[in-house]
């Protein structure tokens, strides 16, 4: 930034002009509900009667080892740990393949995006059962050809979370599209320059493609991590909102939701939410601190 002398002076006026939609939105629409939710986390609030200030009681209850809360933490961390790398790896791999000159690319791209279009619809839940349940396709194959009487993957506490990780990987469309857009933005002359310097395709990949894609890899990583910590829909639709069997897919936000809307413990649920904000903030800060070492921006050139 120091290299750009004539742009480096403060441009407060014009900057805040560009920022104005967000500033208005933030102060008018976002800030109030955020502060409200923070306030509620210090209260006992059943949704229908006025909240009663209880100080740090909700947080104390959390720290005091609510067993289902601890279970939801375990489930969520496991999910983040496995689903984020799997989904991003998949998305990047397919994006790289699709970025090559093949006929019918538009078709493949759309086909691969289809599962993500299904999002959290009922159809996904029905189909996922069709595949992974006791009488699903996988077990039909295992029993007919291998004579193996397999469990119901989707509803066995040992495997249920695994099928949700697979579901996340299957719906890799969004990061794939973002990777593709990133690949499209890499200027062709970078490759030309590398080719003139005698770089082979593999070298071009490691010295041109990957470095120039790092801002997008970073973006996808941060956003997928935040999204996975907040994962709700997969378990909500697959387990009918129960987080079962035996709480094995009890995502953090599902427990929060249950506390708020089934048990009417909105104060406690708000405290749960704010602890999650803390966890995500820490994870995001670590990502941003690490970015210095591996993310290359064109504007730093």
């Amino acid at each position, binding site marked *: 930034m120091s290299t750009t002398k004539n742009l480096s002076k403060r441009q407060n006026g014009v900057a805040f002009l560009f*920022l104005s939609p967000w500033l208005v939105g933030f102060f008018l629409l*976002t800030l109030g509900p955020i502060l409200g939710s923070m306030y509620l986390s210090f209260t006992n609030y059943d949704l229908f009667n006025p909240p009663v200030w209880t100080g740090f009681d909700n947080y104390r209850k959390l720290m005091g080892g609510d067993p289902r809360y601890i279970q939801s933490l375990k489930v969520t961390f496991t999910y983040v740990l496995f689903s984020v790398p799997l989904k991003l790896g998949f998305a990047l791999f397919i994006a790289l393949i699709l970025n090559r000159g093949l006929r019918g690319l538009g078709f493949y791209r759309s086909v691969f995006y289809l599962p993500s279009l299904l999002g959290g619809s009922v159809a996904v839940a029905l189909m996922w059962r069709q595949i992974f349940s006791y009488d699903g396709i996988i077990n039909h194959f295992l029993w007919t050809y291998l004579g193996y009487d397999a469990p119901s993957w989707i509803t066995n506490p040992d495997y249920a979370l695994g099928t949700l990780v697979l579901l996340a990987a299957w719906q890799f469309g969004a990061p794939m599209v973002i990777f593709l857009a990133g690949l499209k933005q890499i200027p062709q002359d970078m490759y030309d320059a590398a080719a003139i310097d005698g770089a082979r395709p593999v070298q071009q990949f490691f010295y041109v493609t990957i470095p120039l894609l790092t801002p997008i890899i970073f973006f996808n990583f941060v956003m997928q991590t935040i999204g996975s910590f907040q994962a709700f829909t997969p378990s909500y639709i697959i387990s009918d909102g129960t987080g079962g069997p035996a709480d094995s897919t009890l995502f953090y936000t599902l427990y929060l939701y249950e506390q708020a809307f089934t048990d009417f413990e909105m104060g406690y649920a708000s405290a749960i939410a704010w602890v999650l904000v803390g966890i995500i903030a820490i994870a995001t800060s670590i990502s941003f601190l690490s970015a210095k070492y591996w993310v290359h921006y064109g504007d730093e050139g």
Partner: protein
Amino acid sequence: MANAGYDDMTSETDQFTAQPTAAPTSNINHVTARSKARGRLIMHLFLIVFGLLMLYPLIWLAVSSFKPSEIIFSDTSIIPRHFEWENYARGWAGVAAPFKIFFANSFVIATLAVIGNVLSCSFVAYAFARLDFAFKKPLFALMLMTIMLPVHASLIPQYILFNAFGWVNTILPIVTPKLLAVEAFFIFLMVQFIRGIPRELDEAAAIDGAGPIRIYFSIILPLMSPALVTTAVFSFLWTYEDFLTPLIYLTSIENYVVPQGLRLLQAARGASSWGPMLAMSLLSLVPMFIVFFIFQRKLIDGIATTGLKG
């Protein structure tokens, strides 16, 4: 223009095969071309097999939507015994309101969301990526923080606020936030893309006397078109498929959007709504698929028009 999508690997190969020079070189080139052709074939095979794997559930949905309700779940065969068009007719006619109303509502909202997000988020992203101003870092952190709070936690305070504005049962609670760049996801996305654009371009323009506003419109905006297209696609798709916000704010049936309409068909204890529900689920995917297909072409074409000439 239509061919702009196929990148240089294809044209490179074509060039080699089209220009036979001295015999030995040409021979080598033929070998390369043949192995490249084989490579492409393998790649296609891989993509097709993989695509089928991805598509299986969708095929199941399509087939099931033509089955009568009583055999959808007991008969697992992939070939329907006969086509039950009635599922579509009944689903489309709807019980509470014709399904086309839900589609129309969804289109209005999703289109506004696209416009809102593309405009507002690109303004804000430009400021964060290129301009220097007071409290830049804390404001950026604050913006990211807004997406860290789970939706269910702020739902009720937000409802109280929007209800006080008199916005309930209007599209304002869904559309206004998009116009006011509330979706930090897209701002951050665009910031990353803008930061990938070399600063020399801005500087050259600045030397020519361009101010930040002109730089934004004449340099940044055209160069970030992949990010704009991406934002447009996701704004459409994610708004179109969102259920929670419409559920809370669009209360009367004639204002329902597609996901709410599908839920009406999903009555657990009904005699026969499974078939129509699956039929409408499939139908509801069609607009999303079309939008995605068109936009992904734009994404590819984009490079031809914006390709940095350095």
